[in-house]
């Protein structure tokens, strides 16, 4: 498209009073040779925006540059539709609100930022959404327990076909083994019948295709276009799938590891699972035929124990309390002991706890010191009862139930060392920073980065984000239920429904060619100029979402519907063959070149900031909104993610005399904040490699610095900039100035 650019400089909100607008306009008209350049005191007002619209309609302006406030505001007023290229120059928050008015440096800053935007729009092209081939709207649900059944059903109810694959011969999972389920409605005091209707409902639903006795042999392809091979007792079936829900659940912790609690040693020490089985048979009797009159539950059997499961399994307290009512129901005179660390009955489950107290339950807080068996195979438990300050010895108990914790099905199988990058010096580069993939034979993804979902701690393929519990590392594949985190039935149902929502979203967005969370609406995608590819594998290794496969010759094979548009591959590529229509290495390169670097004797050093769009850039805005002033030598380039930073930009900047480069990115490490997982960490890794680049140019490596800032750190920004410029003062000017 032939661009006709219009530059619109707003003079409102102090901009007009603090900048030489005429001079600024010259930057557009003289230097930039833009045909249309107008200024107005209130572009976001009706009159102002009408003026722009009329230029679009009457003057054929198709590329609009708004030099006014931050792109974070008035996004709606300045939206001229998909056929118009629109860029913003942030004169208000990042220049006039945090720098002295009518000051030479402030003016230079404004002019540079307009130059940079003009350089950018020269390169920006309208995006054309990616269209996959024969995309489908079907959802695959792996695992036919409560979560899987719910997911399949909820998807179907929303009008989407679903395929439900369960490895055992029947649907229902743990539901089948339950006598009753924990109360799910007010007053939360009595267990409910297991919701088997749900199973019937899913089996009867016309839009749900159920495969039992079946396993996933392979999942190839990408969202909207997954090709799934299912092995049902030897017969191979293939399904075309839009998105996937992993609902394979959890299994009880192996009780044979709990001999210190008498399991395997004494006949009448059983697990909660066994307890359900006995209760289902009717009267609670022991293997030796004795009717159970007294029972003890031992909580945290395996859980909250560094030797076993360090985490809390979240449901055991409620489950044991539920089971306590089984015995009470049969025999109100029966004795129930519960040995616990903390009773964890959140929310309304406090009422179930209260019910068991009312029934006369005996609660003992403290560690078990001994379990002994008498000659009638009854058990005597000794425990340190914190509350009476004594070691107590129980009367003889007919049966002891261990409340064993839950282990996600993703926590089994050989640990596959995925090749990723780490800046953690005491780790080898080949060692994953935090993503672990175990060959748990659940999804068998035909992905270069490994066959299963990467897991966080303890093997849970959970989201790392509190605000975004479905922010998955495998686009279009969403974990739900107890495989994702320990959870009770109500939560599992909610989780299944939520994951299904995301699965549907992914299908809809992929069909439009849009990215999914967090860049929904981004229609761009990476384009690989393959003829220049050297098969170095950096892109496939560094893509946090496993979206790039490799052929046998190690050529990258992008899967655009798996792509999250972070640009990390673009930053990784040493040959710079990867670019987006609206975001590329040369584009940023030209923005850098657009910065006017004053001669050394002018003593006006320049600092280039690459700022993460999500946190650092808003933080810079906040600095302005709070009218905190900062160093006027800085020039800011927002990046999708610091991970998209290509080393060449550093060289570009240095070779044109910019004195220092500051990377502002998200926190990394265990509690990383980067929504592209390793982006900011990767940037730091690459910085490590910058040293030699700078070395070749005879430049000190600390002309480039990286800082971790979050959105609320705006108040620290002036100090961060000052300390960096102080260091640059010590180093003296960049010798390449004026070359």
């Amino acid at each position, binding site marked *: 498209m032939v661009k006709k650019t219009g530059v619109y400089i707003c003079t409102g909100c102090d901009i007009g009073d603090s900048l030489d607008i005429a001079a600024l306009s010259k930057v557009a008209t003289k230097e930039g040779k833009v045909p249309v350049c107008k200024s107005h005191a209130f572009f976001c007002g009706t009159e102002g925006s009408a003026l722009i619209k009329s230029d679009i309609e009457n003057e054929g302006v198709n590329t609009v540059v708004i030099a006014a406030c931050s792109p974070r505001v008035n996004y709606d007023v300045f939206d001229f539709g998909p056929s118009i290229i629109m860029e913003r120059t942030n004169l208000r928050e990042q220049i006039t609100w945090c720098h002295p008015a009518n000051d030479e440096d402030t003016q230079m800053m404004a002019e540079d930022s307009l130059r940079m935007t003009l350089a950018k729009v020269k390169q920006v092209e309208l995006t054309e959404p990616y269209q996959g081939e024969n995309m489908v709207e079907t959802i695959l649900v792996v695992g036919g327990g409560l979560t899987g059944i719910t997911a399949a059903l909820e998807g179907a109810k929303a009008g989407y076909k679903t395929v439900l694959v369960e490895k055992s011969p029947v649907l229902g999972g743990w539901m089948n083994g339950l006598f009753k389920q924990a109360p799910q409605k007010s007053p939360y005091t009595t267990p409910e019948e297991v919701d088997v209707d749900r199973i019937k409902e899913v089996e009867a639903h016309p839009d749900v295709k159920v495969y039992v006795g079946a396993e996933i042999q392979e999942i190839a392809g990408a969202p909207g276009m997954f090709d799934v091979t299912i092995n049902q007792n030897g017969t191979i079936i293939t399904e075309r799938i839009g998105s996937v829900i992993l609902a394979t659940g959890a299994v009880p912790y192996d009780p044979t590891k709990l001999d210190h609690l008498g399991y395997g040693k004494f006949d009448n020490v059983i697990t909660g699972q066994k307890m359900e089985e006995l209760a289902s048979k009717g009267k609670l009797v022991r293997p030796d035929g004795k009717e159970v009159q007294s029972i003890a539950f031992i909580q945290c059997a395996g859980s909250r124990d560094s030797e076993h499961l360090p985490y809390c399994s979240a449901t055991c307290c409620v489950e044991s309390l539920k089971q306590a009512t089984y015995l009470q129901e049969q025999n109100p005179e029966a*004795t129930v002991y519960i040995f616990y660390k903390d*009773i964890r009955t959140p929310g309304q489950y406090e009422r179930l*706890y*209260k019910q068991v*107290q*009312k*029934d*006369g*339950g*005996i*609660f*003992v*807080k403290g560690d078990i010191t001994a379990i002994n068996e008498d000659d009638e195979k009854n058990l005597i438990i*000794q425990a*340190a*009862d914190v*509350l*009476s*300050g*004594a*070691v*107590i*010895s*129980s*009367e003889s108990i007919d049966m002891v139930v261990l409340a064993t914790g839950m282990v996600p099905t993703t926590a089994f199988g050989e640990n596959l060392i995925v090749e990723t990058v780490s800046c953690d010096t005491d780790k080898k580069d080949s060692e994953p920073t935090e993503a672990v993939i175990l060959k748990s034979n659940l999804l068998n993804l035909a992905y270069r980065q490994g066959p299963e979902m990467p897991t966080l701690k303890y093997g849970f393929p959970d989201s790392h984000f509190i605000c975004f519990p479905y922010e998955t590392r495998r686009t279009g594949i969403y974990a739900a239920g107890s495989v994702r985190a320990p959870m009770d039935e109500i939560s599992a149902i909610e989780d299944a429904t939520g994951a299904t929502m995301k699965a549907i979203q992914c299908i809809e967005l992929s069909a439009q060619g849009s990215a999914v969370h967090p860049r929904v609406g981004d229609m761009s995608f990476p384009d690989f100029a393959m003829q220049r590819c050297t098969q170095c594998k950096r892109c496939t290794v560094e893509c946090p979402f496993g979206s790039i496969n490799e052929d046998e010759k190690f050529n990258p094979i992008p899967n655009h519907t798996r792509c999250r548009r972070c640009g990390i591959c673009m930053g990784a590529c040493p040959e710079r063959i990867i670019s987006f229509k609206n975001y590329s290495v040369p584009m940023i390169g030209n923005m850098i070149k657009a910065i006017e670097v004053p001669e050394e004797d002018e003593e006006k050093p320049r600092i280039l900031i690459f700022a993460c769009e999500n946190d650092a850039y808003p933080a810079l805005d906040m600095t302005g909104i709070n009218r905190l002033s900062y160093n006027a030598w800085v020039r800011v380039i927002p990046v999708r993610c610091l991970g998209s930073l290509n080393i060449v930009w550093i060289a570009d900047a240095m070779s044109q005399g910019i004195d220092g480069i500051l990377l502002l990115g998200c926190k990394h490490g265990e509690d990383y904040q980067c929504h592209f997982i390793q982006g900011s960490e990767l940037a730091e890794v690459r910085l490590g490699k910058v040293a030699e680049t700078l070395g070749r140019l005879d430049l000190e490596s600390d002309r480039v610095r990286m800082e971790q800032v979050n959105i609320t750190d705006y108040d620290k920004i002036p100090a961060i900039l000052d300390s960096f410029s102080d260091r640059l003062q010590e180093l003296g000017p960049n010798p390449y100035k004026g070359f």
Partner: protein
Amino acid sequence: MDEILDVSLDMRDYIVSSGAETLSMCMQCGLCTNLCPWRLVHGEVSESFNIRKMQRQAQLGLDGFDEEEVLFACVTCGMCQVNCPREVNIIENVRSMRNTTAGAGFIPKILKPVVSSVRSNGNPWMGAKEKRAEWQEDLNIPAYSDATEYLLYVCCNSCYDPRGKKIAKSVVNLLQKAGVSFGVLTAEEKCCGESMRKLGDEELFVKLAESNISLFNGKGVKKIITTSPHCLETFKKEYPEFGGEYEVIHYTELLGNLLKEGKIAFPTELAKKITFHDPCYLGRHNQVFDSPRELLQAVPGVELVEMDRNKNRSLCCAGGGARVWAEVAVGERFSELRITDAVDKEAEILVTACPYCVTMLVDACAGMEKGDVLKVMELSELLNAAL
């Protein structure tokens, strides 16, 4: 934690069967122990008595709660009970635990004469049976009959204790001034049994209750006025289970109503700074807070000041739960704190409405030699002065 104690469900069940029905509801949060007035004083009892732990031992039937200074420490003030997060009837639990030993006759030495006096004389104050009605002399109170609306039941303390008698007389005078139709019974009346039950002698309590009930019912008693909040509590909440159904009212509440109806007034000015001590059994236990205050404010010149701990958070005088007879060392008495509370507010008169409170507070005030700045009065005494 070296000693190993055996859980005894028999013991637990025995305690529960004696009335501790909510024992298992206790989740051992410990609020009871932390709100307990014993926390406010020092000394042996304060150190050994922990109501939370005591209930814990009951839950498991463990040894340890039966030591005298633990088992008989609770003053049954109800501070813990009204605030208990699990609505545990803590006083019932204490009573039931005391019953495990008191039932078998094991009670603190100090209480033995008290109990035997109740057994023989029908009152805990060593007073002769026949002298019970002595205080009534030349008050021309009619004997209770169908012609009288209320039975005025006077606390044993007011029947025998010199100060108590004055209180009884002033109550009578007020009721007569207000034109209340009431009568009294005489020697055949027995102690209401409140304290006997609280100290765990259930058998004795039942005897007393049954004897009084047959007496009351025989006379056709429907409505009872009590001078003591303790009698109020017993008649109102405990007699029904033995067949004694009466409309029971404390005299302060009755006078409060009459004041509103304009049936009584207090014209005589009394320019004094006065504070009111809520008796546990009138306040926390029966939620009567306003009547006494309204009556006081009806007296011209009276400036009513509140102590920081008032109404539901009022501090016990330590006379409840049969502790009125307990020997407590100076410096370890709640009543002393209460005197200080009143003095801190620069009150000239500390008014209350319970014979036990009067006894405890008068002792404390004298013991602390505060008599010159603070006077302890029963509400009826003060109101009389204002007639």
